[in-house]
């Protein structure tokens, strides 16, 4: 039972981190990127490649992972978002981020291969069970990431500028905020954090080119559960989904994971579309 709970928390941590990454990009651009889960996929595969194929130290793997995530984030904004955000047509950014996400996934599949590869151990460990690092890394990282982001939003000028942009981008521009540059920066941060989540949870997910779509979905469910824009909500939503999946896994088998997830999402959309901690009005129609 402890194992199930720990597994649920770990999965929840991963989903929560993905939800946090959604939030970072959403704050400056009002775009929910279809490629959000792909950052973790890229981070995981790059780390595995550097450590397992190139036989370089883990720290270099981590550095490469973060750099790759940052680059990917920057490219996402530049290619799929910048031109479209001006047109403010939701239709278009869903398609452009979906297209880019598909391209990256396929490119990684062609380069790295389509079989999930075990991820390197981060620290030496002689035992298995509930205290396994593969569980604790995502849990700890997710909490650190949420706390870090909250500090970033509350204590740093850049974080405050992100909030200002999310509230009123036009007014922020009138105050002298270079909104294009800030949006770009937020995507780089999102890429780095996303890659980091892939690094932290790599032992759980393996280095797998097809990880991104499903993770993007789970992260979105966590986000929708917790409410867009809330860091605490992202974590809580992630843990709720993670626990549900872990318990379903335990009692009914792994093949029903996504069915449960979608059931939860549907239920949520009916009962509370703005999420548990959300204040954003999601109804536009």
């Amino acid at each position, binding site marked *: 039972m402890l194992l199930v709970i720990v597994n649920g928390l770990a999965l929840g941590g991963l989903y929560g981190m993905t939800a946090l990454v959604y939030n970072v990009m959403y704050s400056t651009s009002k775009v929910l990127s279809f490629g959000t889960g792909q950052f973790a996929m890229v981070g995981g595969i790059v780390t595995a490649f550097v450590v397992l194929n190139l036989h370089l130290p883990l720290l270099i793997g981590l550095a490469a992972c973060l750099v790759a995530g940052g680059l990917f984030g920057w490219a996402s904004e530049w290619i799929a978002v910048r031109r479209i955000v001006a047109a403010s047509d939701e239709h278009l950014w869903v398609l452009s981020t979906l297209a880019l996400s598909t391209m990256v996934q396929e490119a990684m599949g062609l380069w790295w291969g389509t079989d999930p590869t075990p991820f390197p151990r981060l620290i030496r460990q002689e035992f298995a069970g509930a205290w396994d690092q593969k569980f604790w890394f995502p849990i700890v990282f997710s909490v650190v990431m949420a706390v870090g982001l909250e500090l970033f939003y509350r204590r740093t*000028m850049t974080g405050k*500028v992100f909030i200002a942009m999310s509230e009123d981008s*036009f*007014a922020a*521009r*009138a105050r002298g905020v270079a909104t294009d540059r800030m949006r770009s920066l937020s995507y780089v941060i999102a890429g780095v954090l996303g890659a980091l989540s892939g690094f932290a949870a790599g032992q759980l997910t393996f280095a797998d080119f097809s990880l991104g779509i499903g993770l993007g979905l789970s992260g979105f469910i966590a986000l929708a559960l917790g409410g867009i824009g809330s860091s605490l909500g992202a974590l809580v939503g992630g843990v709720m989904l993670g626990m549900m999946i872990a318990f379903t896994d335990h009692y009914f088998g792994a093949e029903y994971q996504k069915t449960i997830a979608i059931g939860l999402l549907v239920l949520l959309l009916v009962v509370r579309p703005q999420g548990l901690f959300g204040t954003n009005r999601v109804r536009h129609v």
Partner: protein
Amino acid sequence: MNAFPPAPRETLLEIEDLHVAYGRAVVVHGAALRVRAGEFVTLLGRNGAGKSTTLHAMSGLIGKRAGRVRFAGQDITQSSPRDIVRAGLVQVLEGHRVFGPLSVEDNLLIGTYARTPRGDRARLDGIYALFPEMAERRRQPASRLSGGQQQILAVAQGIIAQPRLLVLDEPSGGLAPLVVDRILDVAASLCRDGVAILLVEQLVEKALARADTCYLMETGRVVHEAPAADLLGSDILHATYLGGHVT
């Protein structure tokens, strides 16, 4: 109204032949105006005459179809809003647009952001002296302020940015008369300290009482320019706002 006509001063802002369009609708065609250093200018005209559009285009917030904008000797026609703010041309948008989730103090720091990316805390005291009610509420989120307080905060955000020209777009919109007087008096006192003011206002007489020069806009053009004192109570104004057309 200044008792003595001011000596000729250097031109701070000059807009020439400005054209702006939203899609296919040309909203401003050939607007021109000039603000001298330390001058209080008001830009009047009916709604839809193109005043706000002119201001937005001037600050680089929307694209221009044609025309030229010079500020403090530099051509800023193509400059980014950020560079324009840093040059000292600061605009307070219409409709008390503050950043709701941020505290009053953080809103003010955002005002200093263009010049000081880390936020210039040293300037806070000056603003709090000017607007003591902001000091009292420095930790409150701006969304909790009343409409009038939000507008005061928005103006304060403009002032803390150290403008050479402060542009106020309808600071009175939807506010009680006392608040309006307060804001306009602050603008006038800033002006005495050497900051030029460009005010768009629908409360015509309040604006004219404080301005040196007045421009009138109608259907996307500046149709009249006169010393503010001459316009006060004139037929042209009444005609513009309540009937007839300026010829």
